[in-house]
């Protein structure tokens, strides 16, 4: 049985016109004006144990909402979901002990106290045995090299260090499922790298199931084999990273190094879109299907010293995918 099973999950909610002042708010209770936002419009997903899945999507696509639904923080408007056999929004204690949610740039640790004190509170709330608690804590602080920071008030830590503490807090009770919402947002490059390395290591060792949402391609490329792209509340792709390019990368980039004195950029413009013209090097963007034809035309007409054909950068492809609006519903293709 899959660890996470989602079927037709929907979430729409009303945003009420906010009124200023107490009297106006009370009046507003009786005559409400609102608009409906459909954050999630029918998601089907199955995740097996030990998978490390990335949710990619533009802002407002529904990634965070989906994670919150799976955490039981919000109620769905329709559809079903089960995580570890539990219905998340019932918020049973047995379920809540088995998963964790970490949100980037959001702090749940006590601000003025050392992280160690917040951890102790966690131990009490999750009812972790003392020896196991100490072992896990030491393990995690060792892996993230923050042992020396445990007795410093959280407010004195840097953003990266705070994020590490948040991760530790989330993993103290050894959850089987981990939800990560933009965990590296706002972190500097070094901190990002450290968090990624830690997550990879931890996941490989423990075989827990992780769902990660992120904007950063580096996170996704470094950690996840499976990528789910969400746009406008629907899943439009579910498969491997390289598959995205195959599926969505409609064009390829031909890089040419021309012999001296041969053809100018203007000459080559009729074969495709000029991306870069730096004689003798030229880069062209060409429709994937006609690449062989264009290549043979160029090679026939000009003397070429070097040629290579590449995929467009992943970020670009994904950016283009994100900017699609209102494409037909459901998943478009399943590439596994």
């Amino acid at each position, binding site marked *: 049985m899959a660890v996470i099973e989602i079927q037709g999950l929907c979430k729409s909610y009303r945003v009420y016109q906010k009124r200023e*002042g*107490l009297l106006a708010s009370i009046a507003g209770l009786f005559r409400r004006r609102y608009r409906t936002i459909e954050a999630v419009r029918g998601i089907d997903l199955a995740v097996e144990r030990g998978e490390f899945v990335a949710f990619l999507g533009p802002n407002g696509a529904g990634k965070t909402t989906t994670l919150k639904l799976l955490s039981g923080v919000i109620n769905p408007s329709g559809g079903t979901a089960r995580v570890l056999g539990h219905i998340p929004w019932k918020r049973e204690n047995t379920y809540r002990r088995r998963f964790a949610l970490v949100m980037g740039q959001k702090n749940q640790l006590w601000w003025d106290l050392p992280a160690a004190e917040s951890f102790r509170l966690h131990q009490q709330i999750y009812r972790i045995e003392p020896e196991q608690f100490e072992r896990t804590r030491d393990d995690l602080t060792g892996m993230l090299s923050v042992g020396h920071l445990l007795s410093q008030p959280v407010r004195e830590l840097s953003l990266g260090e705070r994020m590490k503490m948040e991760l530790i807090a989330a993993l103290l009770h050894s959850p089987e499922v981990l939800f990560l919402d933009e965990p590296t947002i706002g972190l500097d490059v070094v901190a990002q790298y450290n968090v990624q390395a830690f997550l990879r290591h931890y996941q490989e060792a423990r075989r827990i199931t992780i769902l990660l949402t992120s904007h950063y391609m580096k996170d996704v490329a470094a950690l996840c084999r499976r990528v789910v792209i969400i746009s406008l509340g629907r899943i439009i792709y579910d498969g491997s990273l390289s598959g995205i390019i195959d599926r969505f990368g409609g064009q390829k980039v031909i890089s040419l190094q021309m012999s001296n004195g041969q053809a100018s950029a203007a000459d080559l413009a009729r074969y495709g879109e000029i991306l870069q013209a730096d004689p003798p090097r030229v880069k062209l963007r060409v429709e994937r299907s006609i690449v062989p034809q264009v290549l043979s035309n160029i090679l026939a007409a000009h003397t070429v010293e070097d040629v290579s054909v590449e995929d467009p950068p992943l970020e670009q492809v994904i950016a283009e995918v994100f900017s699609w609006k209102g494409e037909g519903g459901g998943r478009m293709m399943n590439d596994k």
Partner: protein
Amino acid sequence: MLARATTWLTILRISIEERLVYRGDFALGTLMRFLPIVTQIFLWGAVFEAIRASGSGADSVAGYSYHDFIAYYLLTMIGRAFSSMPGLASGIARDIRSGTVKKYLIQPIDMLGFLLLYRTAHKLVYYLVAAIPFALVFWLCQRFFPGWPDAITVAAFLASLVMSFLLGFFLEATIGMIGFWFLEISSLMFVYMLFSFFFSGHMFPLDMLPGVWGPLVRVLPFQYLAYFPAAVFLQKITGPELAWGLAVELGWVVLFILAARATFRLGVRQYSGFGG
């Protein structure tokens, strides 16, 4: 001169607009501020009932009848409306601490003058909007008042109110200026609030104080913030005593204007010495 008047009008206009947006809330908030008086009225009702039942024949406490007490509390609300300066001292101290005070030193704006204008504008707006709930409450409670006093008393009352506004302002401004020497004035503010609350006559007419306490409190300026105007209106202070009281109040006002200016000048000199 013209520029200052224009600024003043702009501040006034913006303040009014700001208030009017929240006017429903504001009216409600103003009415709610009278609620604690309701409890006090019942308390004194019970006290006077006990006094009557005790058969001692007395019908007043320190010269105030039951109705006088209610009228007194209502009048102190007006006094407070004039003399309370929420956030003045702490605002000045914060400006000093954060360095924003520099703008007063560099630009040709007089800090005290500017703040005074600002407060005046705010208080004026306050009265424009709060007048209605206030009037409503006073109209409902008119039977507690011994009728309208004579013109002299009314004039004295108004004079004492204006002076209590100035006194409250310059007193708190002076405390705020202490921020040039001490970073945290919150403890000082706290002590000031304590004294002010008790000795301004908020809780009870100062006539009630026995023995040596009465004259002791008259020496302090706090009585002019709430007690004095109320007592004047109720004609508990008349004739030469009234004239003397007004004169002393004026004296305090002048004293604190000078104190505020002096501490400002000294503070600035001290502050510039740091070159912060």
